[in-house]
């Protein structure tokens, strides 16, 4: 890449914590390999997102990072014309969407490679990976 990536990179940390939340590291290590992994609770046998130290369904600590297909559907979306962070201004309008993964968890991301107003609820999508810096790879979605 010739131009520097100027938009916000992921800043890990517990929901209300101020320290680095290293437990999410497997997620970002996987995106660098262009794989999507989501936490799975072994106790009740289900996926969940965003990452937590305990399962939000049954409070079990018996968790693993499990690969998922990256396939899902647009559960709901919004087209951002006025970003909260001005570093996104040049991208607007763009699609910010909740993606319901086939495995059951819901993840938040962008839907790309489609004119924003052509996106529809329930549209099938698949994960794509953007190596935005040598250290960070974001997972986004495009029409399947």
């Amino acid at each position, binding site marked *: 890449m010739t131009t520097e990536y100027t938009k916000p990179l992921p800043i890990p*940390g517990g929901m209300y914590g*101020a320290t680095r939340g290293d437990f999410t590291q497997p997620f970002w290590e996987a995106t660098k390999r262009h794989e999507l992994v989501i936490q799975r609770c072994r106790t009740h046998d289900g996926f969940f997102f965003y990452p937590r130290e305990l399962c939000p369904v049954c409070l079990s600590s018996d968790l693993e990072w499990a690969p998922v297909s990256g396939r899902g559907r647009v*559960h709901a979306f919004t*087209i*951002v014309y006025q970003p*909260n962070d001005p570093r996104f201004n040049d991208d607007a309008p763009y699609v*910010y969407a909740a993606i319901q993964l086939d495995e059951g968890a819901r993840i938040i991301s*962008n839907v790309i490679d489609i004119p924003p107003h052509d996106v529809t609820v329930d549209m099938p999508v698949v994960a794509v990976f953007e190596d935005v810096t040598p250290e960070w790879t974001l997972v986004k979605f495009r029409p399947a």
Partner: protein
Amino acid sequence: MTMRGAAAIVGFAEMPTRRTYEGRTAMGLMAEASRDAMADARIRKEEIDGLIVEGGDFYPAAIGEYMGLNPNFVTGVSTMGASGATATSVAAMAIHSGLANNVLVTLSAPRETGMPWGSPPSPGMRTEFENPYGPAVAANTGYGLMYSRHMHEYGTTQEQLANIAVNQRYNALENENAVFRGQPLTVEDVLNSRYINYPIRLLESVMPCAGGAAIILTSADRADSFPNRPVYLLGAGIACDPLTGWARERLTRSVVTRSAPIALQMAGYGPSDIQFAQFYDCYTILHAVCLEDAGLVPKGEIGPFFAATDTTYKGSFPINTDGGQLSCGQPGDAGGFRHVVEATRQIMGRAGVRQVERNDLCMVNG
């Protein structure tokens, strides 16, 4: 025994909502509104023995200290936009349980010109999994998702929901406390306003503002000794959903599906008994969903309802008779308090030109 009818609002005061109160502080606005509410109830400061505030921005004790109050019961509720309605309910709980006799509830927000919305997030889920993807400004993102999903599930249109902003603007035209007083609005105006984030348009969103209000509650056995018509709290429900909109199981359902039935059961009334409503309205879509979830409109039929119903103060079912937050402006977490204040004003019969005829039973959503 529930707290049905155990406490009543006997005085109120509202600082006019304005774009800014330059040079004023949150404490100062709360103190002024509180002083005026005490005067309205004709109660002395020394008689106030309970204080309930928003609690997230300031310790409740600091607010008491600012006004020279030494209450026996004090707490903050920290339920964001719902803080006003929550605090009012907690005040009734405190009176019902014998912790206090005369409770002051006050909330405010100052705002400097050009002040950005919110504060930078501390590291956490939002900075790690949301911000790299560029959420929309303010709280818009979650409501944009709710809106697109509601359109998909129920065929709701933006033209239908534009009536929410239009009807409320009519109600605000002669409200001296409203930022948009004297500025009529049409459905075309709403539909021609720019997108903040599709489907949400500028005129379907609140304007960040400054303001504040205060109310005084007392016990039922003392309520009749005050000069104003007492406004009894007959039922309340305080329920909670995931803070993160996209993490909610059903995006088109609000927490009102759980809070409203608790309140109605306590009050002993059904949705069809309600004469008028004051409902939270940071965005048209949330207002719409909450009205459905309270049972006032069948689920999924809010679009046709607003296309066919006059919800102005002159109409068959008045809603947000002061113009709501959409036309008055939103002073931060104090914004939702206006729904309690306007319900009080109407039931006391002091709403002037916008006074509703049937003013005995109101449902308030924070």
